[in-house]
C-alpha cells in the first residue's frame, strides 16, 4: 500500500512559471545547478502538509516576481482507498486557501490525507543551535503520527500568546489567567502524550532495523515532568508570580527540548562530527518513516534536500536501498545526475534548469 503524489502542477510558484510532473510512485531524483528551482519543487510538496512548508515561508514570499499575480499548486494524491485532488492557491496579500476534492478545507485536514517527513540543510545545525529548532523537528515528527497534534499545538500557542500578553501588561485578573490556563493545560496534556508516543515509536523503529545509519537514544528534556492537564493547570497557577516577573510563561511543553545520544559512542549528538550529526538526522527520518509504515502500512512521503552530496558513495547507495525497501515516494535533490546513478530505473530522474529566471523541468533516462 502506498500514498504518493501522482500529479503535481505549479503555476507562478517561485521560479516555476508553469511546471507539471506525472509520477508513478517511485522516488523522485531532482538534479540541476544551484538556483535552478529544485528546492522550490520540494517546498511545493511540503505544503501538502499543515504548516508553512519546509522553508517556513508565508504565502506572499512564494509569489513569482515580477508578475506577482499569486500562485497555485495542484496535486493528485494516489492512495489505496481513493485518490484526492488538493489545490492550494494564494492571491497577492491573501493567505493560502486549501481545497480538497474541490471543497474548502483547513490546512490541518491535509494531515489526514498523507504523512510527510523532511530533512533540509538548515537542520544540519539542529543539535548545536537553540531548542526551538529541535522542538519544531519533534513536533513535525509527532504530527506524522498524530494528525490532531497540530490542533493541540495551535490551541496551546494561541492561549499562551494571550497569557503572555496579560503577563507583559502586568494584568492580575485571576479568572482570566485560569480561563487561559485551563485551555493550555488540556492542550499541553495532548502535546506531551503525542510527543512521548511518537518518540517511543521512532525509538522502537531503530531497534533491529537493517540500516547503515547510526541509532540515537532520544529523550524529552522537560522543565518539569508534567503529564496530565491537572498537573499543568497547577503548574501554571503556581508559576504565575514568577511568570509575571519574567513577562512570559516559564513552564509548559513550549520549553521542552529534544536530546539525542549517539548510541554507538555514547556521546551527545551536539558533540559529534558534522557528518555524524547528519547521519543521525537521516537515521531519525528513516526510523520515522519505518515506524509510520509499521503503524499504518503506508510509508510517508520523504523530502530530502541536498542529502546525497553529504554522503559517501556507500552510504548514498544504502540510503537509496532503504528508501526503495520502504516503498516511500522520496523526493531528493542534488546538483548532478551522477549522485542518483545508483537508483537507476528505481526512480524518476528529473533535470531542473534555469532559463532567464524560469525553471524548466525535463524527465531524463537514468
Amino acid at each position, binding site marked *: 500500500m502506498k500514498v504518493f503524489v501522482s500529479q503535481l502542477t505549479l503555476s507562478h510558484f517561485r521560479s516555476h512559471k508553469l511546471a507539471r510532473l506525472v509520477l508513478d510512485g517511485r522516488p523522485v531524483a531532482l538534479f540541476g545547478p544551484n538556483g535552478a528551482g529544485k528546492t522550490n519543487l520540494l517546498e511545493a510538496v511540503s505544503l501538502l502538509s499543515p504548516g508553512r512548508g519546509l522553508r517556513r515561508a508565508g504565502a506572499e514570499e512564494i509569489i513569482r516576481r515580477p508578475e506577482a499575480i499569486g500562485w497555485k499548486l495542484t496535486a493528485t494524491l494516489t492512495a489505496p482507498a481513493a485518490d484526492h485532488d488538493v489545490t492550494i492557491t494564494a492571491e497577492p496579500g491573501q493567505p493560502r486557501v486549501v481545497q480538497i476534492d474541490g471543497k474548502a478545507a483547513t490546512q490541518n485536514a491535509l494531515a489526514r490525507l498523507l504523512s510527510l517527513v523532511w530533512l533540509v540543510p538548515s537542520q544540519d545545525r539542529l543539535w548545536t543551535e537553540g531548542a526551538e529548532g529541535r522542538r519544531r523537528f519533534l513536533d513535525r515528527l509527532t504530527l506524522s503520527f498524530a494528525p490532531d497534534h497540530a490542533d493541540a499545538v495551535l*490551541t496551546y500557542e*494561541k492561549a499562551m500568546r494571550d*497569557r503572555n500578553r*496579560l503577563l507583559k501588561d502586568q494584568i492580575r*485578573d485571576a*479568572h482570566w489567567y485560569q*480561563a*487561559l490556563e485551563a485551555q493550555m493545560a488540556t492542550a499541553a496534556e495532548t502535546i506531551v502524550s503525542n510527543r512521548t508516543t511518537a518518540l517511543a515509536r521512532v525509538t522502537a523503529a531503530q531497534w533491529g532495523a537493517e540500516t547503515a545509519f547510526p541509532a540515537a537514544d532520544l529523550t524529552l528534556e522537560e522543565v518539569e515532568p508534567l503529564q496530565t492537564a491537572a498537573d499543568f493547570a497547577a503548574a501554571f497557577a503556581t508559576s504565575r508570580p514568577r511568570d509575571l516577573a519574567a513577562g512570559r510563561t516559564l513552564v509548559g511543553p513550549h520549553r521542552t527540548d529534544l536530546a539525542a545520544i549517539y548510541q554507538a559512542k555514547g556521546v551527545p549528538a551536539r558533540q559529534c562530527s558534522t557528518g555524524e550529526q547528519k547521519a543521525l538526522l537521516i537515521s531519525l527520518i528513516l526510523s520515522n518513516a519505518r515506524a509510520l509504515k509499521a503503524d499504518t502500512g503506508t510509508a510517508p512521503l520523504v523530502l530530502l534536500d541536498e542529502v546525497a552530496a553529504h554522503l559517501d558513495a556507500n552510504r548514498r547507495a544504502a540510503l537509496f536501498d532503504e528508501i526503495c525497501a520502504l516503498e516511500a515516494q522520496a523526493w531528493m535533490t542534488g546538483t548532478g545526475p551522477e549522485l542518483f546513478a545508483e537508483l537507476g530505473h528505481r526512480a524518476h530522474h528529473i533535470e531542473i534548469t534555469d532559463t532567464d529566471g524560469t525553471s524548466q523541468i525535463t524527465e531524463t533516462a537514468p
Partner: protein
Amino acid sequence: MSDDTREIEALIDMMARLPGLGPRSARRAVLHLIKKRGQLMRPLAQTMANVAETARECLNCGNIGNGDVCGICTSEKRGNGQLCVVEDVADLWAMERGQAFAGRYHVLGGTLSALDAIGPDELRIPKLRDRVAAEGITEVILALNATVDGQTTAHYIASELEHAGVTVTSLAQGVPIGGELDYLDDGTISAALRARKSL
C-alpha cells in the same frame, strides 16, 4: 470612471464593503437593484433609512431593536430564569431561529482577547453579573463559539459566576443533526463521545 457613473461606482464600492460581498458580487447586486428600481431599490433605500433612524442596542442585553430595551427583555414570558450568553447579535438571531430557547439573552459583544486588548470591561461581563443578581437568574447557558477565545471567555464567565448561586452550563458539542460520522473531524468525534447519553 466617467462622471455619469461615479455615483454607481461609489454604491458598488460601499456594497463591496459588506460582509459576504466582494467587488464582483457587489456589481451584480447593484445592477440588479437598478433594474428593479421601483420594486426593490427604492423600498430598500427607504427601509434602510428607517432602520438607520430607529435601530438601537438594547441597554439590558445588547440585542438590536427599536427601543431602549428589546422585546425579549420586556417579555414576561421570557423571564423563566434562564439566560443564554452569546458573542454577538448574529448568534442571538441564530438561537431565535431555532425556536428552542424560551429564556432571555445576554450579548457579550465579542470574546476575551488579551492580544487585541479586549478584556472583561470591554465586553458586557460586568453587566452580566448585575443581571444574574437582579433578574433572579437560575441558569446561565454559555452558547459561545468553540474557538480558543470563545472557550477562554466561557471559562472566565464560569469562574466569575462560581459563587453567584446559578448553574452555569454550556451548549453540547458533537454530531450535527443529519451529519455523518465519516465526515466529522477527530476533535468533534471525541467531543461527541465524551458527551454521549443513555438511550
